[in-house]
């Protein structure tokens, strides 16, 4: 079976589905999304799905704010008949070192200047927002009520269904196995369900983006790294905001359904594509969680799993075309916060592909910034 597309998007996560939706909304016909398993089978379906506007660089603040604004009305905009479960309970980001205190105060200033209503709090004030927090473990905190979290499955579905209604074809359980390039131009994509001829390929393959890059001999400067997470049994509502600490290495939220999601990063994690679960994670996670939020010790863990972060050297995504191959676009390297950027990713990538001015300038987030040594370092990441 051979078909023709104007754009083939590789990856059915939040990025791929949001890009497809935005292209179709702008009137592009024959957009095809190719996903090797089911939608959200990659990082999107494994993530904490937290969204925060409290960032340390101006652009991340803007990208996230754009996305929050979108999520607030996403059910309506996307015409989704279920619910993306956006719970805007805020993010409480706790500082446990003097350096963090300093950085957070700077962040709040920046955020406020961009219209983000975050504020700096004393440990006592933080405890008023999250009563089961052990405030003796922290030096301060910042809080922003705009922040929150969503259900990643429904959010992706909402984009995917809206895209399909606009004519996008989504091929699940279809793997891209090769890409044809002729004279430095994209010609088509080989999949396990046939050939698709196309002048444009968007690499939105998350943790597997380098394997896609290899198909066109473009080296993508990211690496993948396992991140683990667990979920508890559902309990009565007891925590409104997401609680997050960078040096304490924890993020945890209580989803509307009642379960707590709890995750952390591991600096010793090897750079590979493993997504197995480890007991070491469970032990370390339990310790971190029970230290900061002792009440969580009473909750039973139901399940743990893992997914891939696709990391860049400056913890910012790579957006845009590549010089080596015409028609090959990247939306990768989200470094653990690509879910929340979904709406912005979709909008901006569609604009870039159509040669329109972008809503938020991301021209310096190109792939070659690393080679040039022009990193755009984000200080506030887990």
């Amino acid at each position, binding site marked *: 079976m051979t078909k023709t597309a104007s754009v083939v998007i590789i990856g059915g996560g939040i990025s791929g589905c949001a890009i497809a939706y935005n292209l179709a909304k702008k009137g592009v016909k024959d957009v095809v999304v190719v996903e090797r*398993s*089911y*939608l*959200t*089978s990659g990082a999107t*379906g494994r993530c904490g799905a937290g969204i925060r506007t409290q960032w340390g660089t101006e652009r991340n603040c803007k990208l996230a704010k754009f996305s929050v604004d979108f999520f607030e009305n996403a059910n309506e905009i996307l015409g989704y008949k*279920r619910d993306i479960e956006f719970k805007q309970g805020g993010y409480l980001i706790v500082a446990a070192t003097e350096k963090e205190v300093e950085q957070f105060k700077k962040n709040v200033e920046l955020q406020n200047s961009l219209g983000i209503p975050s504020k700096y709090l004393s440990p006592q004030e933080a405890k008023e927002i999250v009563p089961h927090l052990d405030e003796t473990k922290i030096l301060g905190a910042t809080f922003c009520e705009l922040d929150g979290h969503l259900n990643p*499955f*429904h959010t992706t*579905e909402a984009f995917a269904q809206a895209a399909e209604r606009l004519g996008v074809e989504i091929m699940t359980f279809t793997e891209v196995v090769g890409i044809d390039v002729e004279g430095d131009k994209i010609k088509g994509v080989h999949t396990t369900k046939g050939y698709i001829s196309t002048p444009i390929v968007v690499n939105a393959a998350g943790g597997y983006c380098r394997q896609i890059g290899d198909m066109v001999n473009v080296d993508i400067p990211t690496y993948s790294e396992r991140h683990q997470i667990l*979920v*508890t*049994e559902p309990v009565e509502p007891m925590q409104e905001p997401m609680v997050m600490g960078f040096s304490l290495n924890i993020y945890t939220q209580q989803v509307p*359904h009642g379960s707590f999601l*709890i995750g952390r990063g591991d600096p010793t994690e090897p750079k590979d594509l493993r997504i197995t*679960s480890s*007991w070491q994670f*469970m*032990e370390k*996670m*339990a*310790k971190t*969680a*029970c230290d900061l939020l002792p009440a*969580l*010790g*009473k*909750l*039973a*863990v*139901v*399940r*743990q*799993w893992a997914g891939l972060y696709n990391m860049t050297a400056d913890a910012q995504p790579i957006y845009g075309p590549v010089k080596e191959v015409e028609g090959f676009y990247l939306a990768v390297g989200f470094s653990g916060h690509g879910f929340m950027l979904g709406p912005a990713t979709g909008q901006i990538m569609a604009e870039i592909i159509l040669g329109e001015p972008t809503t938020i300038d991301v021209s310096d987030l190109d792939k070659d910034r690393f080679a040039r040594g022009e990193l755009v370092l984000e200080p506030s990441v887990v």
Partner: protein
Amino acid sequence: MIEKTGVPTKEDIEEITPPKEIREKQAVAVIECYKEIPCNPCYTACKFGAIKEFEDINDRPEIIYEKCVACGQCVIKCPGLAIFIIDETYSETEATVQIPYEYLPLPKEGDYVTALDRAGRPVCRAKVVKVRKGKHPNMTSTVTMAVPKEHSMTVRSLNLEDYFADNTIICRCEGITLGEIRQLISEGYTTIDEIKRISRAGMGPCQGRTCRHLIMQEIRNATGQNMEDMLMPTFRQPTKPVKLGLFVGGEGDD
């Protein structure tokens, strides 16, 4: 085997299964008389000569399918309740199975019941399409049920309770009903992974031990997919819920 369990083996069943060409063409009696016993009312009941004359009263009955008109006389006369009428020509996707039924109350036509296999295990949902009441209170009645075609040689009994009704809860952890699962399947979510992510079925403390298989059955019923070929979600640790505090010295356990 059958002496011990009362349930015929696969080979036993193969032996008495009418040939495919016959089943595709006509309704027909299936005689599930697996043992030689001194008994011949099926032969005397058949007015069409479709059951061969017995040389010995202990003979097992032999049916001449071409002569069988599926009148059901043998079904109500067989004292062992061992004869059934199956009709695979009933519709594109369904067959009917007529069974002798000696319990009260009888189901009503139009009722949904649970079709059972020879061992009494639920197989699928069945619609009662005909109830033939015995002429006298002590005579055998028959019930004819419509079931998916592939179950014509599996379904041999019924339970009046409709296990497979839309309001049956199949994911007990998350309180999700069969109706909700059917709705999702009809919307195109045809893998367990997708259904799990959209509905939460299988995300609870039991991690799908109860519902997974039932959801697979529903997917099979709706799409014809083979259950063996279905992709299974990953089985994740811990195998049973453990208090988080237990990992840091047991404080979490009351």
